[in-house]
């Protein structure tokens, strides 16, 4: 590492490679979430990989650059949207019959859009876990930097 100053990030080679690959990491997290009812994974694992892609950006480009575009407040709002979405799916089953019942119909097995409410639930869990971990990481980072 040529520069020790944390604010301007890493060297030029690392920054160029990151611009090419960070989108692929995000796409991998989305793939694991969407196929949660067919292959192992699901909401939690996909959410963690999504959060890792954001943290990768902070490590490479420096904290100030990322916080300008994507502050803690926006991450908090996305996480709350995910939580409200999950509760809406559960309550919509409650109005029809029992709490959490399948209302979407089961479809043909092994297709992408099958298996009832598992897919929307996985999506909302990915939003909660991904943005929640990122928001917690930003909060801890702001603790340390406000101290020095």
């Amino acid at each position, binding site marked *: 590492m040529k520069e020790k100053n944390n604010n301007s990030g890493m060297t030029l080679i690392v920054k160029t490679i990151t611009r090419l690959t960070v989108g692929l990491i995000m796409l991998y997290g989305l793939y694991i979430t969407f196929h949660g009812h*067919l*292959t192992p994974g*699901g909401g939690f694992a996909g959410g963690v990989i999504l959060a890792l892609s954001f943290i990768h950006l902070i490590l490479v480009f420096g904290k100030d650059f990322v916080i300008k575009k994507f502050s803690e407040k926006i991450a908090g709002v996305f996480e709350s949207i995910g939580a409200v979405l999950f509760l809406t799916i559960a309550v919509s089953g409650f109005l029809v019959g029992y709490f959490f019942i399948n209302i979407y119909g089961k479809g043909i097995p092994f297709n992408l859009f099958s298996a009832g409410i598992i897919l929307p639930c996985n999506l909302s869990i990915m939003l909660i876990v991904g943005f929640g971990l990122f928001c917690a990481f930003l909060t801890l980072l702001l603790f340390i930097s406000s101290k020095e």
Partner: protein
Amino acid sequence: MSHLPYILCLILFLIGLYAVLVKKNLIKIIIGLGIIDYSLNLFLVLIGYKKQSIFPILSKDTQIQPMVDPLPQALVLTAIVIGLAVTMLMVAIAIRLYEKYETFDITQIRKLKG
């Protein structure tokens, strides 16, 4: 000899408990609690094992065979997330404690007594 994995899980639990009870640094206590969580998750997954069975995932071209019990694997997924939340909270409190007391040593963080 067939009980060896369970005994190793118990030894891992005792190592984590030793770290929580004896060590004086805050960060080592947090690591000890993490080791306790890992050992219990491993124990829970090992309970579902059956001899000569394969993984419990059904895709388009596999036959139906005897499969390992998938219910403990779902329980472990929840337990891992709970452990993650507790670890995050502990690390945040440890950072704040360092700001206030200037040390990580628990023998010197003793304002509340009596």
